[in-house]
């Protein structure tokens, strides 16, 4: 059983290495990830949002829903911590 698991892991690693050939090079300007919306953000974010920091403009403006979700997740985590760790009052029946 142990050998079977090892063989499966090795085969999967070989598959990943084989697929890695087709990935774009790191930092390639022609990669699909760099051709979709990134040029628009880089060219237009200062003009549209008056914000020199592109990261802030993308985080809070273009991707506002995502950040709202993140903040909600953090707040939910805090509320759950309070609910789980809160000490009850000693005279509380």
């Amino acid at each position: 059983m142990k050998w079977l698991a090892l063989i499966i892991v090795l085969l999967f690693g070989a598959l990943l290495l084989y697929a890695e050939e087709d990935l774009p090079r790191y930092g390639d300007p022609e990669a699909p990830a760099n051709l979709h919306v990134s040029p628009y953000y880089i060219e237009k974010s200062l003009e549209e949002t008056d914000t020199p920091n592109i990261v802030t403009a993308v985080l809070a403006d273009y991707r506002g829903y995502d950040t709202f979700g993140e903040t909600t997740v953090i707040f939910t985590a805090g509320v759950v911590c309070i609910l789980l760790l809160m000490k009850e009052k000693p005279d509380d029946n």
Partner: protein
Amino acid sequence: MITRYRNIIVDLVCRVISPFILLFGLYVVIFGHYSPGGGFQGGTIIAAGVILLRLSLGKQQTSKKFPPKLAPILGAIGLLIYGGTGLAALLSGGMYLDYAHLPIPGISVAEKRYLGILFVEIGVALGVFGVLVSIFDSLTGERQ
């Protein structure tokens, strides 16, 4: 102090340093438009300042300065500021979180989006600050 004996060096250094930590946190929040930073990072730094005071001076003293009950309320207010900014844009004719439609008269669209980002960052900072402080308080057994 959490250790058994009060240590005057630790006390003094924490007292001197913590206002600067709080100020730097505010700087990181406000200057998120121009430099690395923003709501998450700044809120964490401000929370670190309060938690440093809690650790060094003890709970009795710092609970008067910043009551533990206030932290979750501030977190909720931060989330409401974020949602309210989006809702204000929605109610004045745009899409949700579309800051170009914020009801602020007299400024251009780019400046409206600038201000929208600022409101949202402040909301995120308040949320993260309140949540981190309230997690610390509940971990150290502060009664809510």
